[in-house]
Structure formats: C-alpha cells, structure tokens
C-alpha cells in the first residue's frame, strides 16, 4: 500500500467535508430565520426531549403496526426483483418453477397475516 493508493479516499473525504461545510455556512448567512419554541427543540416529531421517561407510555399497538409494516415492506423487497427477473427465468424454461417458489413464499406470508388478524393485531382499539 502506497500513500498514493489512498488518494481517492482522501479526495472523497475532502469533498464530503467541504460540501457539508459550504452548505452549513451558506445556510447560516442566507437562510431565513424565524425561530419558534417548537422549532428549537432537538426533535421536531412531537416527542419531548427533556423530562421523565417513565411517565411516558407508548401503546404496544405502535410496535404491532411497525412490525406489520416491516413484514410487508420486506415482501415488496423480495417480490420486485423476482418480478424483474421472472421473464429471464421464463426464457430459460423455468417460468413455472420461479412462479411456484414465489407462490410458496407469499402463501407463508399470507398464513402469517391470517394469524395476525386472528390474534387482533390489525385492530386499533
């Protein structure tokens, strides 16, 4: 390893740091500023940054929704590449095989959905 081998890395770091620095400096000088109390707290998503943690209780339903979301999100991640390459597979003569594999995957997910539904995971109240 020569120092020269690191040159692209150094260049990249310089570029990254300078871009960020320039943006921050420009925003400090030219950006409009009309701060309100809500705008000045660290998190703008509505949660209180300072205070008692134990008093704040979240409903477990949020987690249920988040997990269901991840599940179907992942399903999309698997289905889209499959849909993109299915034609290629079909041209090799394995169209039905590729279809069946995805059908099995979706069937298993559907059983999971049935389970979630029956356990009341989809009801909000």
């Amino acid at each position: 390893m020569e120092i020269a081998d690191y040159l692209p890395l150094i260049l990249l770091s310089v570029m990254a740091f300078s871009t960020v620095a320039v943006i921050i400096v420009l925003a400090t000088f030219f950006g409009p500023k009309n701060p309100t109390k809500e705008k000045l707290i660290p998190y703008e998503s509505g949660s209180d940054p300072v205070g008692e943690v134990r008093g704040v209780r979240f409903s477990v339903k949020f987690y249920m929704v988040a997990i269901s979301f991840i599940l179907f999100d992942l399903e999309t991640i698997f289905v889209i590449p499959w849909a993109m390459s299915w034609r290629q597979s079909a041209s090799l003569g394995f169209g039905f095989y590729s279809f069946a594999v995805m059908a099995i995957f979706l069937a298993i997910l559907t059983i999971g959905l049935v389970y979630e539904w029956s356990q009341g995971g989809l009801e909000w109240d």
Partner: protein
Amino acid sequence: MLNMQLSQMNNLAMLTPPSAIELNALIPGAIVTLVAILFILIDVFHRKGTPRDYLAYFSVVGLGVAAASTYFLWDDVLARPVFFGMLYFDRFALFFAALASVAGGLAILCSPAFLRSHRMDRGEYYLLVLLSVVGMIFMVAAADLLTLFVAFEVMSIPIYVLAGFLRDDGRSAEAAMKYFVLGAFSATIMLYGIALIYGATGTTNLEFIGHNLAYLQVAEGVHAGYWMALVGVVLILSGFAFKIAAVPFHIWAPDVYTGSPTPIVGFMASAVKAIAFAAMLRVMVVAFSFESLRGGFFGYGWIDVLFVLAGASMVLGNLVAITQNNVKRMLAYSSVAHAGYILVGFVAANSHPSFFLHNDAILFYLVAYTFGVIGAFGVLAYFGRRGEAVETYEDLGNLGFKYPVMGLVMGICMFSAAGIPPTAGFLAKLYIFSSAVDASIQTGEFAFIGLVILGVLTSVAGVYYYLKVLVYMYMKPALREFRPLDHIGPKVAVVACAVLTLYLGIFPGRALELSREAIVDFVGAPAAVQSVIDQANPIVPDFAVEPAVVAAEPVL
C-alpha cells in the same frame, strides 16, 4: 476467477431450479417448517379456555417425523454442496438435525402442565420451539457464512422470546432481557467477523474462504488482509463461544437458566449448545483450517484460543457450581463446565488434520449430554408448579423416596453428568479424554495431556455437587410439601431420557457407529482433512459416483 464462477453460479441460482436430488436436503427442515405453519393454522381456530395439550402432541409428532426422515435420508446424502453452494447435505448435518428435533420434542413434552400452572398456556410457545429447531437444522447444514448467520438468528430469536415467556414473572423478564441484549451483541460481533472475512477473502462461501486464505500469504510477507482475516476468525469464534457458554462468554448463563421456563432451559442447554458446537466445527474445519492461520502460543492458531477457553470453562464452571445453592444455577455452571470438556475434544481433534476422525467423540458427547441435561431439567419442570417450584437443594429433600421414578431419573442424569459408569456421560468423557491423550502422544505436545489432567481433576470436583442433589433427594428430610405437575408428558420425556442415557452407557456401539458415520461423511473439508476421511472410508459409496448435475444451458 473463483469468485467469477461463484457469482455466475449465484446468477443462475435466481433463475433455475436446483436439481431434484438436491431438494432432499430440505426435507427435515421443511417438515418442521410445515408443522409450524400447520400449527399456526390450527392454533388460530383453537377454542379459548381449553387446554392446548393436543397442539404439544402435534408438534412432538411433527418433530418425530422430522427426526425419522433423517433415518431415511441417511443413504441419500450428496458429496457436494447443494443449492448453488448454500447448504451441505451430508450425514453430519442429518445427525444434528435428528438431535435438534429430538431435543425439541422432549422439551415440548415437558411443557404443557408447566405452562398451564403458570397461566401461560399459549400456542406460541410450541411454535417458537419449532421455529428454533428449523434454524438449528439449517445452521448445521450451512455452507455459506450468510446462510449460517440467518439460520443462527432463526435459532436464537425464538429462544430469546421463550426465555421471557413467563411474562408475569420478573425473573423471566430479566432472563429474556439479559439473554437478548448479550445475544444480540454477540451476534453482531459475529456478523462483524463475517464482514471482515468477506473483506479479506472476497467471499462468504466456506470452501472458497478456505481456498482464498492461501492467497493472503504472498512470497515476501503477509498480505494486509491476512490480519483482517485473523481478527475475523476471532470475532466469529466469540460468537460461537457465547452460544456454547464457554468461560469468558458465560456470564449470561446462570441468570438466564434461573429465570427462563424450566423445560426451555433443558432445550437451551442441550440443543443450542450442540448445534453451536456442530456449526463451529463446520466453519472452523472447512473455512479456517488453512495452515498459516496456525501459529501463536502453542503454534495451533485459533486452537490456542479454544485451548484457553476449554481450561477456563472447566475450572471456573466446576468450582463456581460447587458454591451454588440453587439447582438451576448449579446446572447452568455445570453446562459451562461441560462446554469445557467438549472443547478439550474439539481442541485435540482439530489440532492437526490427521486427528479429524476423533471428532466423533464430540458428537457422542453431545448426544449423551443432551439426554442427561433434558432429563434433569425435565425433573425440575415436573416439580415446577407456579409458586411452589423446587429451586434450592433444601427443596429437594426426601423427593427421591416420595417420587421414586423421578428420583431414579434424576440419579441417572446426575451420574451421567458427573461421568460415573454405567451411564452415557462416563463413556462420553472417556472418549473425549482418550482422543486428547491420543493427540498428545502423536504430536508429543504436553499441552493436550495437561488439559486432560485438568479435565479429570475438575470433574472430580463436579462429582461433589452432582451427588449433593442425590444426597438431598434421598438422605435429607423434606422441609416443604411440593405438589408435582401430574402430567403424562414430562414423565414420558424424563423416563425416555433416563433410559437412553443408560442405554448409551451400556450399549454405546450403535450411537458411536452413527457418530463415526456422521463425521466420516463430512462434506467440504479441505484436502488435508479429506484424505484422512478417505482413508477411513475406502469404499466409494454410491452417491459419490453420481455425475455432478450441471445447471441447464441458457437458451438464447
């Protein structure tokens, strides 16, 4: 070049089906998966308020079918990786698939009455055990670090949930939290190791890693990637060491074993440990047996690391177990000690390729240990009624005479754990230690004999606390009354464990033969190990002459 072939293989894998004979590799795992899916569907229509015993029996039957399927697949194994280098389908994998299924089935049998008494009779419990077994089956079969890691997580996550299954119980929640945080941490460390190995060798396939490591040592010195690979090996080892509860990574074991539902502790202590050992054996032999990774204090490379872990586990596990008053905590430390004994065999058998066949002692030990430990925890689960569970030695007073069968079973399991004939534990220890002595004599390395001496001395210390259980069960008065959970499940399970422990101790022939067959049919080993295997197995079996199936030619 190799990587190019590999990536072409992976491209084809997305588009073409594997050949029909390769699908056999999925059968044990697929049976358990199918049982789990059917289980969900049945559980959805379960009438509320009625016992779920039939679901437990259904899972046990499913796991039994999976274990039986390995018997029918025993001669259909393939001498090459299947699914485009993702899984191995060899007797080694089938052996541990059967062991995991049997351990899962026995643990489930101990559970129904235990769960009902804790007001937690939920179907998810059995479902999680089934899913964990699926992960175990694929973990041993993994031929790629990614398959290994996914299976590792499929195995671990249900166990984290099961550890906290008694959610009204503070200790169970504590156990789950500790196990989850430390387990997730160790899995991350392992994943980091996998990433470093991938960075150093450019592949996650075990055989290609072994092959590519050779290129990291160039003529004028060592390639920078070599050190990266070394760090990766150590990180992967620590991930495994956590699961087997070897000493610096054992901190979680006592608290988790005390808090978790008792039948699950039996499963955790036996199957998880056995599978982690099996996967460690596969990864270390296939990917990291390259000579230049050897070196270090005794000159055996990562074997030195395991050498230290083995010694520390035996000493600390046994000595701390003596001071325990809680039986489950004592068994937790004893499981640390057993990890140490098994590591002695592991160190000896893998210190040089020519000792590879000594690994069958590890397989036999794991089988013997599995039945012994599930039997012991099964007895504790039998006396595990909510609010009046047997926990300390004093609680065991006079139980041996009041419940003769349970006393006998506990006695056999404790004798087996202590390594006293005629139980399986004695023979298992004998084989482990004699393989280490063999290795020591042939290499002239005193260190292995030193480890054996340490092992024998510490197991003498172990006899004290194992027999203490029996002293209390038979020679001390009862201080409290215990109502056992009168259910057929745990009775059948613990009696089966005791009978098998005795059977393996008196007629070990068949089990030893099976473990020898499993270790001789170990696919993916590097050339040095493979030649040792071939010498032991001179008759070319049918499956080896079958022509390799070539992926279909692309039609343009």
